[in-house]
């Protein structure tokens, strides 16, 4: 009787964390978001161009001119796919920054006037709560002839392998201790 109560108790304890029914998920306490600072390092090489950062969701990812120091800032809706475009100052139409007609804005950035120089910019990154990283700085060296590839979404931290190597070494030591004890 006692044994069956104990077994039921253990099973209940094991499944308890998975019981959530319709309760909204609380924020995940094991991860945190850190900001990504994007920076164009060679903007001075293109004095005749205006650089515009733009997403692809109307009203939420409106175009913005990039500061002269090259820092790409702004707050965008999380599902926006953010790209940076270079537009010749002579071709630049500032009304595009406030234009609410999505199709016109999209058409403008798809035209030959705008050259996409960076694509898939991220402005935040989710890391483990145990991570010591507090921000990421991405520096881009752009060219008008080639698109800067997107930053890899996952930057491997090779320290993670220590999480696996240490337990394996410890298990081996335990095995050695136990086998010596048997002899």
């Amino acid at each position, binding site marked *: 009787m006692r044994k069956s109560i104990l077994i039921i108790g253990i099973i209940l304890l094991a499944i308890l964390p998975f019981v959530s029914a319709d309760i909204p998920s609380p924020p995940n306490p094991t991860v945190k978001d850190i900001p990504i600072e994007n920076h164009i390092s060679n903007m001075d090489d293109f004095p005749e161009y205006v650089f515009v950062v733009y997403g692809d969701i109307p009203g939420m990812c409106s175009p913005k001119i990039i500061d002269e120091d090259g820092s790409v800032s702004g707050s965008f809706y999380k599902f926006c796919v953010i790209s940076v475009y270079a537009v010749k100052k002579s071709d630049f139409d500032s009304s595009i920054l406030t234009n609410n007609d999505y199709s016109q804005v999209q058409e403008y950035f798809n035209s030959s006037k705008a050259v996409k120089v960076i694509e898939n910019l991220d402005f935040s990154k989710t890391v483990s709560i145990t991570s010591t990283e507090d921000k990421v700085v991405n520096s881009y060296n752009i060219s008008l002839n080639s698109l800067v590839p997107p930053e890899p979404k996952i930057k491997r931290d090779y320290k*993670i392998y220590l*999480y696996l190597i240490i337990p394996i*070494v410890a298990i081996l030591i*335990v095995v050695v*201790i136990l086998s010596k004890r048997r002899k």
Partner: protein
Amino acid sequence: MNLIFAWILTIIIEWGVFCLFFRKDYLKLIGYSILINSITNPLLNFLLLFGINMITLEFLVFAVEIFLIKLLFDLRWKTSAILSFCANLSSFLIGIALGRFI
């Protein structure tokens, strides 16, 4: 909290529990505490990266430590379970308390 700090702290807390329980062979006990926590603590932090629930992981650590304590200390299953429960509850509660102050 820094991972290495958390690891060392867990080793010390669980060693304290083992010392209170056995009251002898303190050097051997620290060795066993290092071994046990070198298996469970890094694995717990590794699995945390995948967003697995902390309570589930603590329960897993508790279960694995019963097994390790049983093997290393050569105790009965029930005694191993009690010792594992006390050691893990102490480190969990002290960890939470320190986490609020650090």
